[in-house]
């Protein structure tokens, strides 16, 4: 039979070439182009403000959820992922705890709670909630902040994105952006 070295040599060289080409050159090229054309997105879509003294302050990424628990803020989905079966007993208890928590911070609100507020996301850091979930909280935020419910709804609407081309995906409200706007920072 033909010697194995006849295969081993091209195999080794081929592997090295592919490593340079697909590992180093390709990654470097994409990084270079990305950093030039889309520097904000390529570096985590951070929300940055320049303070009065000229220093920069980063309030986090607009794509990564932050935890909000105070009633004057728009509150997002439960943090962390569960991997629980939606029909299991563990899940049932957990959802009940969340429902009770929502009632405890907003006892006057007797509406049914939108599902996304009492279920965990896949990433555990879902930056969005559904428009219904935001509407559900509008009256509470308005009362806590002595603002009109209309103003709150306007801010919510401003940071709501629709499906792509009106077809793919679901409408969503970016929680962090709404809260930055509520605090007058955005």
């Amino acid at each position, binding site marked *: 039979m033909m010697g194995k070295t006849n295969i081993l040599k091209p195999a080794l060289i081929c592997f090295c070439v592919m490593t340079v080409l*697909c590992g180093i050159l390709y990654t470097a090229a*994409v990084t270079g182009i990305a950093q030039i054309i889309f520097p904000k997105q390529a570096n985590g879509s951070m929300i940055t403000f320049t303070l009065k003294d000229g220093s920069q302050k*980063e309030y986090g990424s607009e794509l990564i959820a932050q935890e909000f628990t105070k009633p004057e803020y728009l509150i997002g989905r439960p943090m962390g992922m569960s991997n629980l*079966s*939606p029909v*299991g007993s563990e*899940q049932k208890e957990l959802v009940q705890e969340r429902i009770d928590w929502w009632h405890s911070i907003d006892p006057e609100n007797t509406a049914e709670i*939108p599902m996304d507020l009492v279920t965990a996301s896949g990433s555990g850091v879902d930056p969005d909630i559904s428009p219904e979930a935001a509407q559900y909280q509008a009256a509470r935020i308005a009362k806590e902040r002595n603002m009109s419910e209309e103003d709150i709804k306007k801010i919510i609407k401003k940071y709501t994105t629709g499906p792509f081309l009106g077809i793919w995906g679901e409408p969503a409200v970016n929680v962090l952006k709404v809260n930055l706007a509520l605090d007058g920072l955005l």
Partner: protein
Amino acid sequence: MKMIILQDILYIVLLIGLSIPLGIYIYKVMTGQNVFLTRMLVPVENGIYKLMGVKSDEEMGAKRYALSALIFSGIGFIFLWFVQMLQGLLPFNAAGIKGTSWHLAFNTAASFVSNTNWQAYSGETGLTYLTQFLGLTVQNFVSAATGIAVLFALTRGFVVREKKTIGSFWVDLTRTTLYVLLPLSIILAIVLVSQGVVQTFGPYKDAAMLENGAAQTIPLGPAASQIAIKQLGTNGGGFFGANSAFPLENPTAFSNLLQVLSILLIPASLCVTFGKAVKDSSQGRVIYIAMMLLFAVSLIAVTASEQFTAPDFTGAAASASMEGKEVIHGTGASSLWAVATTAASNGSVNAMHDSFTPLGGMVLMFLMQLGEIVFGGVGSGLYGMLAFVLLTVFIAGLMVGRTPEYLGKKVEPYDMKMVCLLVLVPPLVTLIGTAAAVSMPAASSWLTNSGAHGFSEILYAFSSMGNNNGSAFAGFNANTVFTNVTGGIIMLLARFIPMTAAIYLAGNMAGKKTVAGGEGTLSTSDTMFAGLLIGVIFIIGALSFLPALALGPIADYFTM
């Protein structure tokens, strides 16, 4: 629900529309014809051949082709194993991550070399940037290219007559990478960055949270470049632990559409390529239709299950199941992705499969258990499907008492032995792996869910590894010595035994004469054949897995 139906239909229209031109393009690449990139890339291509010391018109027999593919993959495996263990000492380690354990490194190396991308680690805490781009990104490319190369070889086996050779592995691998995978990946990666997928060598960022000023770490890295090929090459391994559910890996509805299209794009195109190559487009079309029908039925089943069988909670508004799903994707885009990723042997997720409803999760599991042939992995899906085609031809031949033929080639005992290896190895290693895991005393401590759903977590894990998919019911704690080692071995067996069988099948087919079809020849390009094919696929899958499914998702459904 209307919107979900609309987005699914438009998805399928887009997929078919893109797969036809791309399939024709890949056919030209496979046969060495000029394409619009030829002028630019030919010097690079020839340079690579010169370095390797091979000729662009070199031909290989089955044995040499198989040894080349195996040795090439073996080198990649050893390199990847050691890079992970030594990563703590190597550069591009801004987060100060240490080397991984030997068994986790073994599992991950086996996983990426076999195009599985099962992940027992979480990218942002477990691997350095160097391991990701120099180790994993490279295997994302070359394991995909290897699968496509083997499909080219098998296709040539049907086309050529009385020849001893089936093409050159080095040429197939190089051309696929240069002309197909790299250009598509560059474009996709940059569009993904525009949507917010990160691409940087800079360190993780620390931000102070708005409400209480507490620190929050934003993980970064050269992600978009890896995510592009992760989808296009049906690899599926996420740069970050939560895969494409993580917003920095898949930030918008548009990025989601691009990624879910990329999952099926090349596997679907290859059906067109096959039809062109065997000079009878209807042969490719019938396979495409069979795959698309299985895909569409699964999509309807999963979407309906997620939409209508979600549990009600008193006090919460009735809705589709949202546990483990992102708001921007909802049930529609999450179900579409889940079906695409398990139909193809991709394995990336944009929602947690563990939190799918019992019947939805069962369909996902069953799609993998069919052997990853409903589109399947790039190359490997179609060569697996061709094994089922031969099996169907063989069974039909037995029923009417004629020597079975496919594309003018007689199907003989040697061919059927190779077909059996292709068809039966994945279910065999899946079931053995599941049985071994269940009999481990510590098994129950690896699970997040109790009862039947806990068993589903184990069955899903071994179905995923035993069919080179890579997705998980992620509540299963996979990073144990037992699962890492047995899982690693299973992934290698499930990849390389069928692959070698496909190459030897190609070699044997190439040597045969072509006989002209007659009156009694079974047509392999009409709807009746598509029906027969689906029937055979379903029977093999159901016979192998119904008992196990009854203990897992079916029991889960009836006890909910």
